[in-house]
């Protein structure tokens, strides 16, 4: 038997004697289950990293063995005080019950109460008699490289030094271990290995420097810390989400500017001119010219109005789809096919967004799935990760106490409610059902009313705008009427919806979900109404009498730019509305609540930061950005800017206007995955209309990079045609039924295989859990027997003990 300590240079003699006796003990005292384990010394059988991990626990075993050995051997050092009267103490000796702290923890004074403390103190005495100053003995054993097996080199020493910080011991002990490691003999490394190690060290050093640098430049770091302190990390996660969304928009904007905007701005375009001699008046160049003339004829009185209306000269800027040319860009010898670049950039940008959301959310989505299966520590994580350790404000603390209290109550109530549901009488059942049904119908009616209101407003505005004889102010109002009506509906209706949901009597969690879902649906449906009205202008096919656009539908010359302007107006109005509400309605409310001593104002004006409500606001902006970025390439950049400002607006709403929420307990990871889930839904909602338009609608003939194409998607098709034939052939083969069908079958089989595997594993989990419980019972039983046995033994050997002095002293 090679004991780990024996392998080192400094071997305590007493320990060695004990170990030898331990070994002898094995044969004679086989009744003791620990004796065998005591002889087993860590490091003999196991190798490498596994050993390092096990050793601290191994020492616990070894010492437990020592304990028994002492019992059975009168004459060895033995202290009756330390012997456990209670099997529970043995339970703490088991390796499965120990954290590293227990085995490495050092007592400052000799403490006779707990066995392990007692043990460590004896050990300390032993080592001290040998004139060694190794206080953190156990750890040293754990940390010291085993010289007999493989001699330490500089790299392993360094690696172990990096591991010290994870140890739950005091700084003085850590320092000592470090000194020990540094003073121990090590191999100098040479050649390639030394170089590699040097590189690793440099890498670590750079990482530290980068961390320092990063904390200094990280955007909004101090804001996040402040929020953490006052509201806890769950609220902060919302703001981190805003930041994440902003970064996504910035990346998208960079891609778009480098592939679309920059080439257009730098390179020159050559559009064909409209020559009446050899071209009909409906040809692309002539339509383009018509649009240019139309634009220059549309003279708005001042620049302010133009900017506000988003028309006039703004039409002919990089902001809108209409500006981009349909001919390839040429700069010297460089040839840049802008239409193709335009379409493919947007395709890749949308794919990028999709995969980024999926990737960020994947962990959270998985957790949600697991949770829905019920394999989740609901109560335990509520208690153990309940407190936000970074909280430091009194208000936040009391709110947190209350929120935790309510959440626990809610968990308790939940079961009761389920019981209630079962025991509910038929009358009650009918009543709740009826209420919910009527509420649902009411909500649908409200949706219908809101949508038709918006629809008629838009129709009114469009018909009025056909005639020209209005004052500028009235015209501006008409222009903004659709946007105003949509934003107005978005502001008013959610309050009604919120009130209605509370009448339906769902559980708090479901109520929140309902509110969130309905708010999102409302936002989407209002935009949908706008899109339908735009579609009614655009969807007509061009008749034989029409020149460039369909006159029967009154299609604008460049309808993409027209649609983009509509959406831009909504974005602007919505954004202004948010600022207005935060600073001019909610801020005074907060002042009233804080300074007027009146119950009514307190009830009416106290606000809590309702994450879900604000989430809808943020996601809505992103929805509009995605919806319009194809017809407005600068939209992602604008979106990033808006989100940047919105961060401060929401921060104001959170830090100044709101109190920490005491009614809802937000969870960090759960909320984050919810944001991403909502964002994913929004992405699909935005992509729906875009893809629909790309496949079915004809691009306007007077403007934009795609004029002259049958649909937006047909350019993709024609580009594909121009690929080399081998790629085309390859694609045809892959998509042909001879390949696709077997692939499908294969995938299906694979899916089935995993399904079976999961089912089996689930079964196995149940079986193993049962097994574990049985083992636990067995252990309990054995421990009881053992303690009884020890008690017996103790009484028998009591007289013998007093005669023999402890070995440690005699040595």
């Amino acid at each position: 038997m090679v004991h780990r300590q024996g392998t080192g240079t400094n071997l305590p003699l007493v320990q060695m004697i004990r170990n030898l006796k331990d070994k002898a003990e094995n044969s004679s005292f086989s009744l003791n289950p620990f004796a065998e384990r005591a002889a087993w010394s860590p490091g003999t059988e196991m190798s490498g990293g596994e050993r390092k991990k096990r050793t601290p626990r191994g020492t616990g075993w070894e010492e437990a063995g020592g304990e028994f050995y002492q019992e059975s051997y009168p004459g060895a050092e033995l202290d009756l005080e330390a012997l456990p009267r209670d099997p529970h103490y043995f339970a703490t000796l088991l390796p499965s019950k120990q954290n590293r702290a227990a085995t490495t923890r050092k007592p400052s004074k000799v403490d006779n109460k707990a066995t392990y403390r007692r043990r460590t103190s004896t050990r300390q005495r032993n080592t001290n008699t040998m004139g060694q100053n190794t206080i953190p003995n156990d750890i040293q054993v754990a940390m010291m490289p085993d010289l007999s097996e493989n001699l330490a080199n500089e790299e392993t020493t360094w690696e172990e030094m990096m591991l010290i910080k994870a140890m739950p011991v005091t700084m003085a002990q850590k320092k000592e271990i470090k000194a020990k490691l540094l003073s121990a003999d090590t191999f100098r490394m040479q050649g390639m290995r030394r170089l590699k190690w040097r590189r690793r060290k440099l890498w670590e050093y750079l990482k530290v420097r980068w961390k320092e640098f990063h904390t200094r430049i990280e955007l909004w770091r101090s804001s996040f810390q402040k929020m953490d302190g006052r509201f806890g990390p769950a609220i902060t996660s919302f703001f981190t989400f805003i930041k994440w969304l902003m970064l996504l928009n910035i990346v998208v904007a960079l891609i778009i500017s480098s592939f679309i905007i920059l080439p257009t701005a730098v390179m020159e375009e050559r559009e064909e001119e409209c020559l009446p001699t050899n071209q009909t008046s409906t040809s692309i160049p002539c339509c383009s010219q018509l649009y240019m003339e139309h634009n220059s004829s549309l003279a708005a009185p001042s620049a302010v109005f133009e900017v506000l209306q988003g028309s006039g000269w703004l039409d002919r800027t990089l902001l809108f789809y209409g500006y981009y040319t349909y001919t390839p860009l040429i700069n010297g010898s460089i040839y840049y096919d802008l239409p193709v670049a335009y379409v493919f950039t947007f395709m890749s940008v949308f794919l990028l967004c999709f995969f980024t959301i999926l990737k960020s959310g994947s962990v959270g989505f998985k957790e949600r799935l697991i949770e829905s299966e019920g394999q989740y520590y609901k109560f335990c994580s509520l208690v153990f990760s309940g407190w936000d350790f970074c909280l430091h404000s009194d208000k936040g603390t009391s709110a947190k106490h209350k929120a935790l209290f309510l959440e626990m109550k809610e968990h308790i109530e939940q079961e009761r409610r389920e019981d209630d549901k079962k025991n509910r009488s038929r009358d009650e059942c009918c009543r709740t059902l009826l209420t919910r049904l009527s509420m649902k119908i009411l909500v649908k009616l409200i949706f219908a009313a809101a949508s038709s209101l918006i629809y008629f407003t838009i129709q009114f505005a469009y018909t009025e705008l056909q005639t020209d004889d209005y004052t500028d102010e009235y015209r501006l109002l008409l222009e903004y009427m659709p946007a105003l009506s949509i934003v107005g509906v978005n502001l008013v209706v959610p309050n009604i919806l919120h009130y209605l949901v509370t009448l339906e009597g769902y559980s708090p969690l479901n109520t929140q979900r309902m509110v969130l879902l309905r708010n999102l649906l409302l936002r989407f449906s209002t935009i949908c109404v706008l899109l339908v009205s735009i579609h009614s202008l655009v969807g007509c096919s061009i008749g034989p009498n029409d020149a460039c656009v369909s006159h029967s539908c009154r299609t604008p010359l460049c309808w993409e730019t027209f649609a983009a302007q509509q959406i831009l107006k909504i974005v602007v109005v919505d954004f202004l509305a948010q600022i207005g509400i935060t600073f001019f309605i909610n801020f005074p409310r907060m002042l009233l609540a804080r300074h007027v001593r009146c119950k009514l104002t307190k009830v009416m004006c106290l606000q809590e930061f309702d994450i879900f409500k604000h989430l809808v606001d943020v996601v809505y902006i992103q929805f509009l950005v995605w919806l319009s970025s194809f017809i407005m390439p600068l939209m992602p950049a604008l979106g990033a800017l808006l989100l940047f400002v919105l961060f401060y607006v929401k921060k104001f709403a959170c830090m100044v206007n709101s109190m920490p929420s005491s009614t809802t307990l937000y969870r960090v990871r759960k909320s984050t995955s919810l944001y991403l889930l909502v964002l994913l839904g929004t992405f699909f909602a935005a992509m729906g209309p875009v893809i629909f338009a790309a496949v079915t609608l004809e691009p306007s003939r007077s403007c934009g990079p795609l004029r002259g194409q049958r649909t937006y998607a047909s350019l993709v098709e024609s580009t594909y045609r121009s690929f080399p034939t081998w790629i085309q052939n390859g694609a045809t083969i892959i998509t042909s039924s001879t390949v696709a069908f077997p692939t499908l079958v294969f995938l299906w089989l694979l899916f089935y295989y995993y399904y079976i595997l999961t089912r089996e594993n689930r079964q196995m989990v149940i079986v193993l859990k049962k097994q574990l419980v049985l083992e636990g019972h067995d252990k309990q039983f054995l421990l009881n027997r053992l303690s009884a046995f020890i008690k017996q033994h103790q009484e028998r050997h009591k007289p013998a003990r007093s005669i023999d002095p402890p070995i440690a002293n005699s040595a």
Partner: protein
Amino acid sequence: MGQKCSQFTEEELQDYQDLTYFTKKEVLQVHQKFKNLAPERVGHNRNAKLPMNKVLQYPELRVNPFGDRICKIFSSSHDGDCTFEDFLDMMSVFSETAPTAVKAEHAFRIFDFDGDDMLGVADLREVIDRLIGPHRLTDSEMAYLVQNMLAEADLDDDGALSFAEFEHVIDKSPDFSSVFKIHL
């Protein structure tokens, strides 16, 4: 840095950087915070031992229901009084870069009130009691909660959570690492 640096030598800072999850600069920040707790005492002796009630004036610990436990766990004399090195240890464990396993180990010790290396029913009750602060649960509600916690996590059915079981819970509750931190 000048004056701030004067209380530590470069080697000491290097030691601290190697042995904690902080960079040298952050170590100095921690010391500044420690000094702010008792400027006159720490000014004389940079490693002065501050009594627990002084340490508990640190904003995050003041409102923390487990503040006294944290002090006791990290105190090298086990009575809650902390020297700067104890304080540094504490902040290192609560820093953002400390791995979850290290945090879990300390969390276990914080929650283990009677120090028997098991989270028994009494420990769990105490944790819940401290979490809800001034509010009170009835005995049956408390019993229900504890019973449910044990049903979830006590895999070997011995009526208490061992460290391994606790670690398992922490593995499965993703919020833990984002909650168990204190900003510098």
